[in-house]
């Protein structure tokens, strides 16, 4: 071929070879890496779980004096490939404020996710991990509390026969607004 050894031609040929090499190499590597990336990021696409209404207890189990009581939340659960029937998925504090009005708080501390305890002496919820305290209605009680927000309240429905149903949800810890945990 004419001018095959012309430096300009060699440069051009080398550029072409380099470009094709780069495209082929990237194409070949992209397939396994892409598949791996897609699988690893699959949980990101799942979105927040929507709250399911779950029967927790009966009004008869709640003291009329407004003292909160802790109840496990028991429901069916899908965990990756398994389905479990009737397993605990969390817990709530229920408090009867009027004859047939019940307030529900998620037991999880919004600071770092520990379960709070109720102290009947102090009439407060206390977090054993970082000493946050919360009032009976769930609002932050101690100034300088590490918790960015009060305990998360949940929707309650008192249905026929005094059955107490709660729309159960967990929320993201560590932020001042209530965002459902994905």
């Amino acid at each position, binding site marked *: 071929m004419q001018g095959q050894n012309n430096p300009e031609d060699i440069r051009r040929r080398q550029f072409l070879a380099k470009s094709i090499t780069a495209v082929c190499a990237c194409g070949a590597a992209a397939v396994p890496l892409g*598949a791996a990336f897609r699988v690893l990021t699959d949980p990101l696409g799942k979105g927040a779980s929507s709250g399911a209404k779950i029967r927790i207890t009966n009004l008869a189990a709640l003291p009329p004096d407004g003292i909160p009581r802790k109840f496990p939340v028991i429901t069916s659960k899908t965990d990756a*490939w398994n389905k479990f029937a009737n397993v605990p998925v969390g817990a709530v504090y229920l408090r009867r404020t009027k004859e047939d009005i019940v307030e529900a708080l998620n037991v999880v501390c919004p600071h770092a996710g520990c379960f709070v305890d109720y102290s009947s002496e102090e009439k407060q919820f206390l977090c054993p991990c970082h000493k946050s305290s919360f009032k009976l209605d769930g609002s932050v009680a101690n100034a300088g509390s590490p918790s960015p927000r009060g305990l998360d309240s949940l929707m309650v429905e008192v249905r026929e026969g005094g059955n107490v149903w709660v729309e159960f949800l967990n929320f993201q810890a560590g932020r001042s607004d209530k965002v459902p945990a994905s």
Partner: protein
Amino acid sequence: MNPLFSWIDSRTGIGAVGKKLFYQNIPGGPRWRYAWGSVVAFAIAIQFITGLTLWMSYSPSVQTAWESVNHLQNDVAGGWLLRGLHHYCAQILPILLALHLMQIVIDAAYRAPREVNFWFGLLSMQVVLLMALTGYQLPWDQKGFWATKVAMNILGIVPVLGKPLQTVLIGGSDYGQLTLTHFLAVHAGLLPAILVVLVGIHVYLSRRNGPAGTESKITRSSPYWPDQLFRNAVVCLALVGTLLYLIFRHHLSDPQAALGAELTAPADPSEPYAAARPEWYFLFLYQFLKLFPSSMEIVGAIVIPGLVMGIFFLMPFTGKSKTGAKMNIGFLGCLFVGIGLLTYSALSHDAHDPDYQFAVKAATQESERVKELAASPAGIPPGGALNLLRNDPLTQGPKLFSKNCASCHRFQGGDGMGRKVKDEVSASELSGFASREWIAGLLDTNLVASPRYFGATKFATGKMVKFVKTHVGAYNAEQKEQLQKVIAALSAEAGLKSQANLDKDQAPIIEEGRTLFSEAINCSKCHAFRVKDPDLDAPDLTGYGSRDWMIRFIKNPAHESFYGEHNGRMPQFGEKQILSDESIGLVVDWLRGEWYQPGQTNMAALH
């Protein structure tokens, strides 16, 4: 030079390494055939990338291994692609290795100074094959489980160390949890670590010694980058293209077909898998072993393969002379031809073996079925997906029928599994039992004494046959119409799923039929129906064909509410503890057509 790069380079020397990698001179210039080594390395890299990600989705236990793989395959975005790449790349690697080896032997590239390099290549090949073997079992499906079991038995016959090694690897004498944890650690930890070291040394030595066969006639040389890398990259892309083709190929012709790698039903140690075969690249060994009687198996499994490997290891010495090198090529040629012939013979034997074909078909159905059950609203219970199949009437019913009922009864003329039965039929056909059609056949003068009903039983000359032949045969039009109503009423007792709508729509007719049963048609002369009457000796037809009625019947056909002392050959399956209550329930559910179907939300059928 970039200051950041020069800072790093001055402390690591990375620039020199890069220069060596990219700008090393290739004597004789770039060649397409030099790309083999690179493509093998790339294939191994694909296995590392996909394998690591698979590992993140995998749970090694008897209750979760298959389940996690099925979840990845069917529920996780891109899971099928990831599995497909890993699976098919493992299938192609042996071919790439064989071609790489062939090239080395043909060029006699094992000669000095490349002997050690050649040995490291051979060792790496062994490790890759061991990885294929151990990886095959991890999905814990029927195919992998039974095929690996065979391989482990072969390991067990190795003198002295074989048996202990086998027991350690399996984690005891039985396959179970420890087998999976051990195999995963070996497949994803131990062997890859060994492979990295071996391949690392192999690549280092091949770079150190340069490509073979060019020493004497170097006319030109050029750097690795870009000309050789260009060739390597194109070949690697071709490999990925081939993998994608293999992943999509079934899908191209049938859009319903599953994408990616196959996953058969969950491993069931109690359910031998007649379709078990090693992966195709071990098929020759499987076929080769058939040539040896069991006392000589060690020769076929260990001694001869060991000798073959020994010959390969000695090639750098035997191939020093021209004649020696040619003999080595001849040996390799004979070996490949032999492997080809054995593989062909194994494949063609299976293709002409109806039992194998049947086993493959049954296995395919079972794997489809378990996927349906796993995707059902009830999902996979914590005990694992195997329970889904074990409690599934559609899967177990035919098997139980074939083993326990088909020596006398038939189902659609066969044994329930779709096979013909060698024994003479000696009891009724049970497909559609208690349906209107089935009962109408029983009350048909032409059919009642045929082998479909009582013809082959001791009741062939009994009262029922006589009744049908003499009375029913002489019915006038009105009586025939009444008979139809009685049939509807009797069939409604069964509450069959297939007739649910019909029974609902025709409730008044059924009600009428119940009255006609004892009045006009006079069945109640012999049969009790919705009233107890201990004096009647024909079977009580209250709840006829219902789940409860059938279970009670199968448990004890000689019970006084059924045939009593007139019972023929039918065993008392429950009474004599021939079948468990669960098994009887499964057969009954299957005969009645009660099993989960996709799209069904009512879970009552499942439990």
